[in-house]
């Protein structure tokens, strides 16, 4: 299951929002089929960083990205890259669950339809069921697939969004504080799901919960003021970080 292959590689990544520089020379290699947690105070650039991985920043006019991000050694900012295809490969789950205003079934079926993944109704039914099963939601919704996605509880909606993200068979899943709006039980279900998904996908998760970072990730990166301060195994970062700034942040001493 574990692989040492580098899936995502960021080299000298600098990001600007207008005059303001949000990321400074970020160099970071993320390995395949691992969960990487990104931590740091609000505004430190961790969300900006993951938004570069599926080019979500493209939609912000004043945003300028310099340096390279490669997935499987291909520069994702190259002109040859079709951003729709990139996002098929790199799914994303946001802080607030954001199901489409459609049925539970259509939430999952929407992207596979666009990408022409399922050939017929039977295939699609199977795909919807598989995704909902992988997201540990199937048993709770199998009898109400035609009800709106928004009728589900917050935790169920978030699992629906994860099911939607995996419906197009991505290789990478980006999660931007996926549990911050959820109760502990829903959080536990998402964390359990992350654990299961990591055998198949490369996952990058932004979190403000140190305990969550410890629980779900194998690697952790600490950002501060747009710079990657420390990156290493999660065990090392939380037991014995090398950098004083990392230690001050994770122990709650931050000046």
């Amino acid at each position: 299951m574990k692989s040492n292959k580098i899936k995502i590689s960021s080299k000298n990544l600098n990001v600007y929002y207008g005059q303001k520089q949000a990321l400074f020379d970020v160099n970071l290699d993320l390995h395949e089929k691992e969960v990487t947690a990104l931590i740091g105070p609000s505004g430190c650039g961790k969300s900006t960083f993951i938004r570069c991985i599926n080019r979500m920043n493209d939609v912000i006019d004043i945003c300028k990205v310099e340096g390279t991000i490669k997935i499987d050694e291909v520069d994702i900012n190259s002109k040859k890259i079709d951003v729709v295809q990139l996002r098929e490969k790199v799914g994303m789950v946001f802080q607030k669950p954001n199901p489409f205003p459609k049925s539970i079934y259509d939430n999952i079926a929407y992207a596979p339809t666009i990408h022409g993944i399922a050939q017929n109704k039977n295939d699609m039914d199977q795909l919807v069921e598989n995704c909902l099963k992988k997201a540990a939601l199937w048993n709770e919704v199998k009898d109400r697939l035609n009800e709106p996605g928004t009728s589900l509880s917050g935790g169920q909606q978030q699992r629906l969004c994860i099911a939607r993200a995996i419906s197009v068979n991505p290789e990478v899943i980006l999660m931007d504080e996926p549990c911050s709006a959820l109760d502990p039980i829903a959080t536990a279900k998402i964390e359990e799901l992350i654990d299961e998904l990591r055998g198949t996908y490369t996952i990058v998760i932004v979190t403000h919960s140190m305990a969550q970072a410890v629980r779900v990730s194998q690697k952790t990166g600490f950002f501060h003021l747009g710079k990657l301060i420390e990156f290493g195994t999660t065990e090392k970062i939380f037991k014995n970080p090398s950098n004083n700034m990392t230690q001050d942040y994770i122990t709650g001493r931050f000046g």
Partner: protein
Amino acid sequence: MPDTHIVKSYEEELQLLHDSLIQMGSLTETQVSDSLEAVIKVDKESTEKIIKSDEKVNKFRTKIDTQIMNLLVKRAPMAIDLRSTISALKISQDLERIGDLAKSNARKVEPLPLDLPESLLQSLKRLGLLVQKQLKDVLDSYVTKSVDKSLAVWKGDEKVDDLTHFAMNEVMDFLSKDKKNLAFSTHLIFVTKNLERAGDHITNIAESVYYLIKGDYLKGHRPKGKETQV
């Protein structure tokens, strides 16, 4: 680096844990030195008090356990705070065991004769004083967060082994001189072995202090003194 936590009560809780451990350490030191004195002076009067005082050491252990449980559940300590908390847990266990060994030695005084050979008493005294010094040094290394001191204690256990071997030979000599000495000698073997075991707990503490400071385990083989065979 800022020394204090943003949450003041967290800071206080860590400080209280640290204080408890130091108080427990100092109480254990007293127990070890009092029981040694009782043994080498064959002072049967003082033993009752030493045996009773072990309760105080045990109470500290319970208090520290509770403090640690609260810290873990409330603060989920990380990095240096996690290491401080876990080291305190381990150190308090070792201190409690050292306290038990001191109590056990105090118990051995009652049946001893008042005319034990001076050379035997001196060899027990040398061993006991070294164990006392090791305990003092390891507690100093904890307070001053000194890697060098903790390492010196860790390596110093070799000498404890040697003096144990020496004291054990003295006990054997005493035993071989007269069959009537058999019962006394059995007690003295326990006294010697208890001191040696206390030394082992002290090396455990040295390892905990090292881990606390460095975030890594002490590697390599600890130098061992002579093996004592009874």
